Every structure is written in C-alpha cells, then in structure tokens.
C-alpha cells in the first residue's frame, strides 16, 4: 500500500515552547491509525501542522492526497445553517452538493435549514464530520471525536467512520483522549508524550503493554499486575 502521510522528524514550536520534538509517523492509504496521549502532548499541534495551519521549524511531512480535519470542539460556523456548513467544507472542490453526506447521515437532511448552534452535540459532530467529508479527503484527521458526547452517540459516529474507511478506502487518523475507543477502532496506534512518539505498534501489542494499560486504559488491572510481576 502506498503511503498517504509520511512525517519525518517534525519539530513545531510556539515561540520558545517546543510542542513537537522530532515526530516521525507514517500512514498508508486506507489505514485507520490512532494517536493517543495525555493533554498537551502535541496531538492537536500535529494535526494542525499536517493541515497546513502551522509551519514546522524543521523536519517535514508529505501528504499524498487531500487531508480534511474534524477539529476538536467541532468548530462549526455556528450562526450558519447545516447546509452552509457542509457546502463550505467543499471550498477547495468543484462538487458542492451535500447529497452524499445526507445519505450517510440522514438526520442532517432534515436539519439542513437549522442554524448549527441550535443542534445537539451529537448532531453538531455529524455536521463537523460531514463538512470534512465534503472535501473528499484521502485522509480524514479526527480530533477528539468523543469529547463531550454520550457513549451511544460516540459509538454511532465511530461506526460511520469505520464504514467510510471500509467502503471508500479513506484513511483515518483518530486523535483521542479515550484511548480504549481509539485502540478498539484502529488496528495501529502511536502514543505521543511531551511532543515525542513514546510508543507505536499494533493496537493489540499496545493493549498488552503495561505502560499503556497503566497510563491510558484505566489503570492497572489484575492481568497487568501479573505481567509486571
């Protein structure tokens, strides 16, 4: 499989503070990869750099195809309609008909004339995902899909992402605080800590790692204690 994203020794700073300190990462076309790590590890910085919002100090990245981001906190055009939000997602494209998104998320078709700010959190997240899909991305970067949403809503959205990935071969880079969800959805994962990749590998491997279990998967369980012992 050819790469969709190659990142080599990426360094990003905000003034004096180093947010990313030599990050290397690869993703294949059609792959689902999780990026987990604590608050302030640089996950959002990484996404914003790949989306062209931030300039790296050194190192670089190469995108083979288009990327679109579902930003943390959804960042909708709050005082505009659902349909406007979706159509604006296709700013760089010629095709601006949101029909495909309505087919994917039928509730949005009925909400199309509603002002985005008046929707529920789950509906807003659907709009955010739909808006990103309007750019017909080869790589969808999702920043905190689950933040502030009810578990059932998260499951539904996650299911949509998996199906999109299978049906269209769109790669997904999932940034999540909810590491368990991310590892369940994605076969491969990176752990980012203090601006560096601390661990990477298949989700199954990471799940067995005591460090990951302790830090991200809800503390030390009996099994893990056994392994450590």
């Amino acid at each position: 499989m050819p790469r969709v994203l190659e990142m080599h020794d990426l360094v990003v700073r905000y003034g004096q503070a180093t947010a990313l300190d030599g990050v290397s990462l690869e993703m294949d076309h059609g792959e689902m990869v999780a990026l987990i790590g604590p608050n302030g590890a640089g996950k959002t910085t990484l996404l914003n750099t790949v989306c062209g919002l931030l300039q790296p100090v050194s190192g670089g990245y190469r995108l083979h195809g288009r990327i679109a981001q579902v930003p943390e906190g959804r960042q909708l055009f709050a005082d505009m309609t659902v349909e406007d939000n979706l159509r604006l997602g296709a700013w760089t494209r010629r095709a601006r008909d949101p029909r495909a998104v309505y087919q994917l998320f039928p509730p949005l078709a009925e909400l199309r004339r509603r002002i985005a700010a008046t929707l529920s959190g789950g509906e807003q997240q659907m709009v955010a995902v739909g808006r990103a899909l309007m750019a017909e991305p080869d790589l969808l970067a999702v920043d905190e899909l689950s933040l502030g949403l009810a578990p059932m809503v998260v499951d539904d959205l996650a299911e949509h992402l998996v199906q999109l990935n299978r049906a269209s071969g769109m790669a997904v880079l999932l940034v999540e605080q909810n590491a368990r969800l991310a590892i369940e959805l994605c076969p491969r994962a990176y752990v980012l800590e203090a601006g560096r990749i601390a661990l990477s590998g298949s989700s199954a491997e990471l799940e067995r790692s005591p460090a990951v279990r302790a830090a991200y998967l809800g503390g030390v369980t009996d099994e893990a204690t056994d392994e450590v012992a």
Partner: protein
Amino acid sequence: MRLFLQYAASGLATGCAFALVATGFVAIYRVTRVVNFAQGVFAVLAGMVAYTLLALGVPHVVSEALAVVAAVAAGALVGLVAIGRRGTAPLASLIITLGLGIGSYALLILVWGDQPISFDGLKGNLDVGGVGMQMQYLLVVALTAAAFVALGLFFDHTYLGRGLTACSSNPRAARLVGIDVRRMGLVAFGLGGGLGGLAGVLLTPLQPVSFNSDVGIAISGFAAAIFGGLLRPGAALAGALVLGVAEALVAGYGQASLQSGVALVIMLGIMIYRAGRRPLVASDEDTA
C-alpha cells in the same frame, strides 16, 4: 409640518449615504476585525474622481461608476497595506488605516487642491404631498435600497458571500476548510471601498467635499455602524437613518454648526453604554 418633512427627507437621504459608509465599516470589520479608519476617504476620493471625469466631458452614470471602481481599487490597496502581511494584529491594522487616511490628504490636495468641489446631481424636484423633494434625494434612497438588496443577495446566496460570512463566523474553521482568510479580507476591503465610493458620488452633489471631509463622513458612518456592534448591517442601516434625520433636524431647527456633533454624541453614548458590557473593538486575543 412642511418644514419638518423637508428636513426629514433630506435627513433620510444623507442617512442613506451614511448607511453605505457604515456597511463598508461592517463588511470590513466582520471579515478582518479591523476598524477601517480610511473608510471616509473612499467617499471623498470617489466624489473627486467623478468631478474630474464629469469636467472632462465623460457622461453621468459612467463617471460615477468609474469613480466607484476607483474606490474599490483604493479599498483593496488599503487592505493590502493594512492586512497583507501575515500575522498583523487587528489593532496594528487599525493604526495603519488611520495613517493611510491622514496620508491620503497629501495626495488629494496635490491632485484636487484644498477647495471644496461638487458637481450637479439629478436635477429637478418631485412634489410629494405638497412637499418639494430634490430628485437627488430620491436617487440616493433608491440606490441605497438597491445596494442593500444586492448585498443581501450576495452574502446570503452566493458561495463567495457565504465564504466571507464564514470568515466572520469562525476564522479558524474557515482556514481549516481551505478558505484564504487574508484574501477574503482583501475582498471585504474592496467591497468597503465600493460602498464608501457609492456614498461619495451620491453625497457630493448634496454637500461639497474637500480633502478632509472624510472625517465627518467616517464619524457619521461609524456612529451608525456601532448601532449593530459593527457586525449587523441591518442595525447599521437603521442607525444611519436615525442619525441622518437627527442631524437634519438639529441643523434645521437649531444651528447647522451643531449638526456634526449629533453623530459624536450618539457614538460616544453607545460606546460608553457598551463598554461596560463587552469590548467593542476586538482585542488581539479575540482573533487568535
């Protein structure tokens, strides 16, 4: 009563011109969060360009249209200097527009001298219920109404208009979907220039302009624009009409010299009232 109606009619006409200037402020502020202090210059420039073209024998309508085009170009140019450099803070851009506005005096005096100039507008009077109204007043009102309808259609029903609105709604998200926010800012400056220019060619036949008339025009326009917190064109229109009529009544029944004070008093009143609630002009952090 007849006198009152006449004052009110002339007030509505100048109010319409203020509304165009005010909408220019709003269009630029919404997209860039910059208060464009050079806004009055566009009106003066367009008035003077139209004057020269008419003097050269270019027919009406063509002269005025070319003058508005010149104002659009001036607007885009001011925008380029004010926000062209990446990462210029809105308050820095504001100071740049102030500097350009004052600096423009030199250019205007060099080309047109320091005496007020004017040209004939639409001639004749229309008798409305016993009140004679200058045709030019009606022209100003009609063209302002047309401009507002056109703006409404543009912002609500065109993709570019929605893109401009998106920059105002959420600049961060606008960048994420690939909108070049700076370029949209330049479009807004051009639009602001055109609106100022339209006000200028409509206003010059009613009140002659000289190089420094921009201050009075900008103050009236700004006072109207802050009715809607610099963000809502509809409120700016209402504010401008109230202001225009109030000024005309003060000039008619009181003293003409007190006229420009009305805008200042209204503007200060609104700003003091709002200052306690939230900052009127975005500070740098708001746009980060």
